[in-house]
C-alpha cells in the first residue's frame, strides 16, 4: 500500500473519514480480489497527488466486515467518496483514474 494511503479500521474510520473536513476516498478491497489488486496503484497515486487536499484510505473487507456491511457493500472493488461524513458517490468495479479524480475535484 502506498505511503499516503491510510489503512482504515473500525477504530479510526470515524475520525479519519467521517469527521474529516476534506473530501475522502475510501477503497473497499480484499487480498483475494484480483480487480481490487489491479485498482490499488491507481488509488495510491491519487492519495499521493491529493495529499493535503483529500483523504484517501482503504478498508480490507476481510478484516473489517462491519464497515463494509454498514455501507451495504456487495461488490468489490467499491469506492465511496465522502464529503462532510456523507457518501456523495459510489463507484463500482474497474474505473479510470480520471473518473475518480473528477468527482474529488468537484468536492474540493
Amino acid at each position, binding site marked *: 500500500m502506498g505511503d499516503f494511503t491510510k489503512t482504515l479500521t473500525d477504530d479510526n474510520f470515524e475520525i479519519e473519514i467521517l469527521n474529516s473536513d476534506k473530501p475522502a476516498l475510501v477503497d473497499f478491497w*480484499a487480498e*483475494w*480480489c*484480483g*480487480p*481490487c*489488486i*489491479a485498482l490499488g*496503484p*491507481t488509488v495510491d497515486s491519487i492519495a499521493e497527488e491529493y495529499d493535503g487536499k483529500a483523504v484517501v484510505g482503504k478498508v480490507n*473487507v*476481510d478484516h473489517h466486515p462491519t464497515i*463494509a456491511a454498514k455501507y*451495504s*457493500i*456487495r*461488490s*468489490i*472493488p*467499491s469506492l465511496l467518496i465522502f464529503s462532510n461524513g456523507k457518501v456523495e458517490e*459510489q463507484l*463500482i*468495479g*474497474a*474505473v*479510470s*483514474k*480520471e473518473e475518480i479524480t473528477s468527482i474529488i475535484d468537484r468536492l474540493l
Partner: protein
Amino acid sequence: MERKVIIIGSGPAGLTSAIYTARANLEPLVFEGLQPGGQLTITTDVENFPGFPEGVTGPELMDLLRKQAQKFGAETHFANVEKVDISQKPFKVWAGGEEYKTQSVIIATGASARLLGMESESKLMGFGVSACATCDGFFYKDKKVLVVGGGDTALEEAVYLTRFASSVSIVHRRDELRGSKIMQDRVMKHPKIDVLWNSVIDEFVGESKGVGLTGVKLKNTKSGEISTVECDGVFIAIGHKPNSDLFTNQIKLDDMGYVKTQPDSSKTSVEGVFASGDIQDTVYKQAVTAAGSGCMAALDAERYLESLES
C-alpha cells in the same frame, strides 16, 4: 516521439506480445486498460497453464507475465485507450488524455462478461447483481443467490458460490445444461444447488440505494408465465463479448464483433495492425492460446517493421 509498437491490452495475449517485442528491442508500450492483467485476474486457480504443476492463481500468473515483459524493457501504463485512428500512418492512439503515434499496433483487448442488457440490471449492478463470483461471493454468506447461464462458467460459479451462500439456483433458458459432463454431475449432485429450467430473467427487483436487490421476476420460456423469486444476489454468467468497440468501422470485424485475422496469422484488414487473444478467437479462448497468439502478433509486427526499413 513515434513508437514502433503499441500494444492495447495486458492480458496473456498483450503481455506475451510485450515480452517478444521487448526482447526484439522494439521498446513496446503497453496500455493496460481498466482490467490490468485481463480476465484471469478475476479467477482463483489456473490449473491448465503449462509450467505450473501445482497450479497458480490468475493474479499471480499475470503479475509474473508483466514482470517478465518489464524485465526486457516493455513500458506498461495503467491507462485505457479512448480512441484510435488507424486510417493513416503513423497510427494514432489516445490514452489517459494524451496522443501517441506508432508504426504498428497490436490489439489484445480481449473480452468482457456479457450482460443481459436490461435497465434494471445496470441499475442494480454492484447492489446485488454481479458478473464476478470470485469478487463478490464473499458478501453472500448464508444468503440465497441465483446464477444465470448454463455453460461451464455458470456451473463453476454456482459450485464456487456454495462456499458462501445457503442456496444457489441456476437460471437456465433450456431444459438441459450446456456445460461439460463432469461439471453437470457436480452441479446435479450438489445438495445446495438446484436448477430453474426453461427460465429467463424478466426483471431485477430492488433499489440501488439501501436494500439493493430483493428478487427477480422470472419468465418461463415454454408457458410465458411470470413468477417472482426472492433472492439476495444474482450472478450473470452467460459468456463473453469481444472488446472491439474502439475499432468499429476502422477494421474488419465479424458479425459477433470479433476482429478478423488472416488465416494462420495475426494480420488484420489494416496493414501494420495485428490482433491476438480472445479479441480474434471465436473457438479456443484459453490463456495459453491467447499467449500463443500474442507471440504470433509480436513476430508478425517485427517482420512488418523490418519490411518498412528495407
